[in-house]
């Protein structure tokens, strides 16, 4: 449903026989060509719209104009608000109920009533508008220019590559890269006086550690240096990240020690844990227990 406003526009363009295409849509909504194509595919395949591409006119048209888009209950402003709420709930305490709320708003659907206590966010704040502008700039990787009210330096003007929005300590924040000072900068949205989206693009720095900028006090992963006898391809979906160091030595970031121990014991290529000591000790204990059981 999040692409509905674009589909409505696309629908109108087709009815007006303007023959819109993915390029027009991408340009209009500052999205990628690929995303625009996905929207058109969605209209055609999921919403079963009878549309056809006219190669001559380089655009789409309705084969059967009696087709109507499914009912849309939300307008563009409401959609922006829902998007903002999705982000806010996502940054709130991670209880299953709140996570559900976030998912719900993400889908931008109007569904069942919620009968439990849930956090309330004020949608009347100017921050909602700022949020949406910045969100689009992050998606389209456009630089921003700010007039910012700094509590120590007064009003300052600067450019920033916007990376991520997050909610912490009851305030909305933006982290980005300041090319002039060559550092990562965190701003409070309520201190932004003026905002301008620039046409200049940026790329995200390798040094950016996304997890540092989050609404939660997130846990750090354990880190192990492990040597194998062959190349390794541990899937990241097991809650681990593996990075090649040198030779057959890898750095593994993990949260569940038991999971990694099971993986290493079962791996025919596992050679040695170089660090930390405690992991080595746990593997030895596990193996000794197993051997003792087998000898019983």
């Amino acid at each position, binding site marked *: 449903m999040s692409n509905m406003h674009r589909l409505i526009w696309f629908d109108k363009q087709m009815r007006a026989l303007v023959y819109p295409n993915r390029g027009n849509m991408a340009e209009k909504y500052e999205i990628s060509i690929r995303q625009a194509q996905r929207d058109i595919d969605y209209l055609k395949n999921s919403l079963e719209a009878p549309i056809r591409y006219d190669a001559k006119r380089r655009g789409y048209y309705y084969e059967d104009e009696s087709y109507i888009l499914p009912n849309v209950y939300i307008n563009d402003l409401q959609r922006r608000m829902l998007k903002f709420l999705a982000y806010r709930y996502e940054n709130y*305490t991670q209880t299953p109920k709140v996570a559900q709320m976030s998912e719900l708003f993400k889908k931008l659907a109007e569904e069942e009533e919620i009968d439990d206590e849930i956090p309330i966010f004020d949608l009347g704040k100017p921050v909602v508008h700022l949020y949406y502008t910045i969100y689009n700039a992050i998606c389209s990787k456009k630089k921003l220019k700010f007039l910012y009210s700094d509590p120590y330096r007064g009003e300052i003007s600067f450019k920033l590559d916007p990376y991520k929005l997050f909610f912490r300590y009851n305030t909305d924040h933006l982290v980005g890269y300041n090319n002039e000072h060559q550092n990562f900068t965190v701003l409070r949205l309520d201190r932004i006086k003026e905002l301008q989206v620039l046409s200049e693009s940026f790329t995200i720095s390798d040094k950016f550690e996304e997890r540092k900028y989050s609404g939660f*006090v997130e846990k750090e992963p354990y880190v192990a240096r492990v040597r194998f006898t062959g190349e390794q391809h541990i899937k990241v979906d097991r809650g681990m990240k593996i990075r090649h160091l040198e030779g057959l030595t890898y750095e593994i970031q993990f949260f569940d020690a038991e999971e990694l121990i099971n993986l290493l014991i079962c791996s025919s290529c596992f050679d040695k844990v170089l660090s930390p000591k*405690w992991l080595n000790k746990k593997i030895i204990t596990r193996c000794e227990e197993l051997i003792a059981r087998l000898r019983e």
Partner: protein
Amino acid sequence: MGARVLENVKLIKESRGFVDCLYSVLTAAGRFKGAKYLLSGMAGFAFIFSAHKELIVASTEMYGLRTTALNSLDILGYYSEVYCGLKNCLTFPLHQKKAIIRTKESIDAGMGTIVWAPGITDFGVIFGYDDEDGVFFYRDRHHKDEQILLYDNLGRVEATFWMCQIIGDSIEKDIKDIYLDSLEYAVDIWETPYLDEVVHNRALASGRKAYEYLIDGMKSGSFSELGAARLIYFNVIAREEAYLYMEIVKEELPECYPAYLKYKELHDIYQNIKGSLPPPSMPGQEYRIDRTNQLPQLIEGCMKAAQVEEEAVNELKLLLKERLSNRYVDILDVKKFK
């Protein structure tokens, strides 16, 4: 770079999380030699009863962790420090830094530290550290082997609140004073209606009011089966500890005999209640109330328990009349300015 691991730190799930951990820390350090129920009674934990209005599962641990932890160690005659806070507190990094330093110092001094929610949301005991790997070693009540906590993750909990208690030196406190202080605390727990240390509303109750929440909740039918069962089960354990504790106390303080008789009666009621609360079919599962078959007996049992506990506390009040009447502290110097 240092490393130290304390030996003989055993942690067994028998009582409340805090009591199990305190017992583990003190016995490993050779500072306590009695039974666990004795420690539970002396620290006031045998008398604790807190309940959330909706009888949620976490009710049992909503007794005001920080205040109670400090109070309990104070009753026992120990100096203690608590590092704690809400996880979104701006000064968290500073508290965490200090807690890491003090935990290592405590282990160097031969004393483990009590930590809330090092991994899963329950108390644990930190009994070692290794600077090279940047980790603490801790035990919890749910895993046999030692668990690992990165220094950076101390206080980064799944729950909203984190806590770490360092236990220091102790004074030579007369055992009679410990007994009397613990009984005074029992009266306070009973008489304090609302616990609002963190949540500033009246959803959290203690003592008499907690019974009201429990009974009203079960009568209304809108409650968590797991939460209510857990609350009752915790009371079964705690009041057994209270009864056994009073049995010891009455030897030293014969004037406690009437109160002891009431706690014995209370214990008997809870043993009956326990009979209406069949144990979980699988080990490790939580108790759960069967609404159709058990609820009427449980409500009746809890009402009896509330009445007898009121009588037991009345006996304690009679016994402690002088202490309770004379403990006014003129902290604002009101009398001076009158």
